[in-house]
């Protein structure tokens, strides 16, 4: 019985012609694995960005932002779409540190949100909205 095993082992070993070919398959698998890992790693993660970033839409209609209050995750994008026949803008309210500048009916403007925001329409200053970052 033991003799039979030894014989079988010998035959199997002999079926591989050289040490190189013996390691070829595991090596190829390893290389493929590495390529997969590196090649398909989400670039967002490397740049420490929110990899699940989603896009939210705020519709400007009848002189209001809908919804006027929005909860987003850090790094999400918010798109404002103007459906009124009046121009509107989206301007940071406290210090007006950024603004979309006025945009017309059917036009849109977007921003990646990384902090809580209070905004208003600098053309119609009583139109207001807020965005809150949630964990």
């Amino acid at each position, binding site marked *: 019985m033991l003799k039979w095993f030894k014989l079988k082992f010998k035959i199997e070993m002999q079926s591989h012609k050289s040490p190189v070919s013996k390691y070829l398959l595991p090596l190829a698998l390893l290389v493929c694995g590495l390529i997969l890992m590196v090649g398909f790693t989400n670039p967002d993660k490397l740049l420490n960005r929110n990899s699940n970033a989603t896009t939210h839409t705020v519709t400007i209609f009848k002189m209001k932002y809908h919804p006027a209050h929005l909860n987003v995750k850090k790094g999400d994008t918010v798109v404002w779409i103007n459906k009124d*026949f009046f121009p509107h803008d989206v301007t940071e309210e406290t210090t007006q540190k950024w603004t979309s500048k006025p945009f017309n009916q059917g036009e849109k403007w977007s921003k990646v949100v990384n902090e809580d925001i209070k905004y208003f329409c600098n053309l119609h200053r009583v139109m207001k909205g807020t965005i809150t970052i949630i964990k």
Partner: protein
Amino acid sequence: MKTKRKNALILVCLVLLGTSKLTFGQESPKLIDTEIASVAVVANQIDIDYAKIALKRSKNKEIIDFANRMIEDHKAVIQQAVALVEKLGVNPKDNAVSQSLLKQSKETLKTLKKASRKDFDKVYIDNEVAYHKAVIDAVNGLLIPEADNLELKSLLEAVVPALEVHLEHAKMVQTKI
């Protein structure tokens, strides 16, 4: 005693007159759609005319910004109204309400032109608050209920929120003057 009774009678008459006017007031003046379109165009043009005077006479940034906003937004409403009547193949039709609005506006234009430089901003913005209030009431109470064409009705309904935002904006400027 006699005068008291007389006064009471006058008061009763006035109340009766007031209520009867209220009841009948809901039915008149009856406006057809082309007349409503005319009222809409005239009412918007009047506020543009007020704003143009403000641009000439005011040095206040809040007033100038507000006046520019009025010119642009009310022009947009006129464009919508004109586009609609063109689409429907009709013309805005002059009527008693449009004429009365124009007549009143002439008085206001005179007041705005005559106001001293010092008083101008206050006279202008006080009038804007009063005018927007009056126009909102007229659109809600007269023009929308009387409009038959659904597109005209929905245009008027879309204008109301803008008028309300203008009113709030005017009140905000008013507190700073």
